[in-house]
C-alpha cells in the first residue's frame, strides 16, 4: 500500500470522529437543557427578548438543523459573535493566536529538549540513587497544583524581587520579550515533571528489548547503544507525545495567560468562562477538538514516514 492511499484512508477515518465530536458538543450545549438566552438576559427577560436571542443563536431551528450548524462551524470557523465584546469570534481567535504562540512555542521547545536530555541522562544512570532522586523529584513537582506554582512565582520573582513584569503584554518583536520570560519559565517548570517521567519510561521500555542485547553483544559502548539504537526507537512514542501537544500551544496556556494578562487564546477562554460568554466557550471547544484531530492525523502520517511497519497494519 502506498503512502497516499494511507493518507486518504486516514482522512476518511476522521469524518465519523468530527461528526462524533460535533454530536457531543451538540448534546452538551444544545440539548442538555441549558438555556443560554435565559442565562444572558436574567430572570426579568420578556418572552420577546428571549425569543430574539434564541433566534440569533439558532436555537429556534429544528434540532437536526442545529446539529448541522455545529458541523458547519467546524469547517467554516464561523462561530458568530462574542456576547461580552460583540466582536466576531473568529477575529478574536486570529488576534489571540500570536500572543499565545509567543509564550507557548519557546516554552514548549525548551521544555521538550530539556526533558529529552534529562531522560537520556536518567536512562544512563538507571537504578542509581540519582535516577531514583530525579524520579521522586519529578513526581513531587507534579504533585503541586499548577495554580500554586503560578501564584508563587508571580509573587516571588515579579512582585517581591521585581525581576520581571508582573503582568501585561506588548505586541511585536522584541517588545513582548520582557513579558514572556516568567510565563515561559513557569510553563517549563510545569511540564518538565510529566515529560521526564514519560520519556524515561519510554526509553527504559526499549532498553530491555532483545535488539539492545544484540547491540551490546556486538561490543558497542553503552553510549552508542543508547544514542544510536535505543533513542531511535524511543523516538516514535516521543514524537506522538510531542506532536499531540502542538494544538495546545495554539490554544495557549490557560491559567498562565490569564494571570499574566497575555491577550492570547488561553486568557480569552478563561475570560469567557468568567463572563459566561456562551458562544466563545462553544467556539473554543469546537476549535480545540478540531485542532486535536488535525494533529492526530499529522502524527499518524509522520509515523509512517518514520516507521514503515506502521503502514502495513
Amino acid at each position, binding site marked *: 500500500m502506498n503512502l497516499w492511499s494511507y493518507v486518504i484512508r486516514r482522512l476518511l477515518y476522521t469524518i465519523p470522529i468530527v461528526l462524533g465530536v460535533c454530536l457531543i458538543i451538540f448534546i452538551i450545549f444544545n440539548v442538555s437543557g441549558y438555556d443560554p438566552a435565559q442565562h444572558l438576559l436574567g430572570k426579568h427577560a420578556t418572552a420577546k427578548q428571549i425569543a430574539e436571542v434564541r433566534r440569533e443563536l439558532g436555537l429556534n431551528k429544528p434540532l437536526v438543523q442545529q446539529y448541522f450548524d455545529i458541523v458547519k462551524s467546524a469547517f467554516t470557523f464561523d462561530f458568530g459573535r462574542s456576547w461580552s465584546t460583540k466582536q466576531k469570534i473568529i477575529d478574536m481567535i486570529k488576534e489571540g493566536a500570536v500572543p499565545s504562540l509567543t509564550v507557548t512555542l519557546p516554552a514548549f521547545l525548551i521544555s521538550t529538549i530539556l526533558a529529552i536530555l534529562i531522560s537520556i541522562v536518567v536512562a544512563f544512570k538507571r537504578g542509581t540513587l540519582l535516577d531514583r532522586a530525579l524520579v521522586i523529584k519529578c*513526581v513531587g513537582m507534579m504533585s503541586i497544583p499548577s495554580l500554586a506554582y503560578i501564584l508563587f512565582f508571580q509573587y516571588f520573582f515579579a512582585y517581591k524581587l521585581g525581576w520581571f513584569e508582573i503582568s501585561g503584554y506588548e505586541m511585536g518583536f522584541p517588545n513582548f520579550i520582557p513579558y514572556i520570560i516568567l510565563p515561559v519559565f513557569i510553563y517549563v517548570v510545569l511540564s518538565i515533571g510529566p515529560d521526564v517521567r514519560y520519556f524515561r519510561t519510554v526509553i527504559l521500555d526499549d532498553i530491555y528489548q532483545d535488539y539492545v542485547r544484540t547491540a551490546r553483544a556486538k561490543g558497542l559502548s553503552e553510549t552508542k547503544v543508547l544514542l544510536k539504537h535505543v533513542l531511535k526507537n524511543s523516538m516514535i512514542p516521543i514524537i506522538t507525545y510531542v506532536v499531540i501537544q502542538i494544538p495546545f500551544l495554539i490554544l495557549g496556556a490557560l491559567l498562565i495567560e490569564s494571570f499574566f494578562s497575555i491577550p492570547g487564546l488561553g486568557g480569552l477562554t478563561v475570560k469567557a468562562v468568567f463572563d459566561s460568554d456562551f458562544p466563545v466557550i462553544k467556539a473554543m471547544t469546537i476549535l480545540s477538538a478540531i485542532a486535536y484531530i488535525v494533529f492526530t492525523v499529522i502524527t499518524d502520517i509522520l509515523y509512517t514516514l518514520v516507521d514503515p511497519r506502521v503502514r502495513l497494519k
Partner: protein
Amino acid sequence: MGAPMESKSKSLWSHAWDSLKKDKTAVFSLAIISIYVLIAILTVTGVVASGWEKEVGASYLPPSAEHIFGTDIFGRSIFLKTLKGVEMAIAIGLITALISTVIGVILGLTAGYFGGKVDETIVWFYTSLASIPYIMLLFAIMFVLGKGTGTLFIALGVTSWVPLCRLVRGEVMRHKEREYVQAASALGAGHRRRMLKHILPNILHIVIIQFSLRFQTAIKSEVILSYLGLGVQGVPSWGTMIDDSKLELARGVWWQLGAATLAMFILVLALNLLGDALRDALDPKLKGKA
C-alpha cells in the same frame, strides 16, 4: 527475572501484597493516605474541625504557636480550614474516581467482550470524546450544568473515564478467547457471568492503578475549577483556599496558599508514589524495570 520457583504458587494478589509490603515508599504512602482518610472521617462526623467557621483571632494573623497556619481574612483558623478541606479532597477524589471507573469498566468490558458493531460504536464514542481536550470538555460541562459540588463530581467523573475504558477493552479482548473463559462458557456461564465473574477479576489490577491516578487528577483539577469560580461553594476546599490567596499574596499573606498547597502536595505525592508501586507490583510486564 531469575526468581527461584516457589513450592507453592501464589496468586497475583498475594504476590503483589508481598512486594508492596517490602516497598518502603509504598507502605509510607499508604500510611499517609490512611491518615488523610481518617481525618476526613473525623471531620465528616464533626469530631475534628467542626469549629472551622468560628473566628479565633484577628484577620490575617501570621503563623504562631497558637495558630500554626495563621488566620484568614475573617480571622478563621487556616489550620482548621485545611483539615476541613481534607474532607472535600477525599470526597472529590473518591466520588469522581468511582464515577469514571464505573463508566470505564462497563463500556470497556462491553466493547472488548462483544466486539463487532458494539465495539465500533463504543470506540467511536470515546475517540470522539477524547478529541475534545480534557480541560475544555470540563469547562463546557461545568458551564452548562452550573456551579455546585454535585455537578463538580459529575463533570470530573464523566470527563475522565476514557483511558481506563481503552485499557479494559484491550485487556478483555486478550482474555475472552482464553481457555478459562471457554471453560466457563462450556459450564453454561452466561455473558454477564463470564464478564463479571471470570474476566473482570483478571483485569482488576488495571482498574486499581487507574483509580489511584483518577483520584489525584480530580483533586488537582478542582483547583483550576475553583480559580474559574466553578468550584466548591460554602465549605472549605484546598482549591478555593489557593484561589483566595491570589489577592492575599500582594499583602504578604502567604500562609493560606502555603497550608493548602502543602496539604495537597503530601496527599497527591503519596497517591502518585502508591500508584507507581501498585503498577510495579501488579503489572508483571513491568517487573524489574524500576
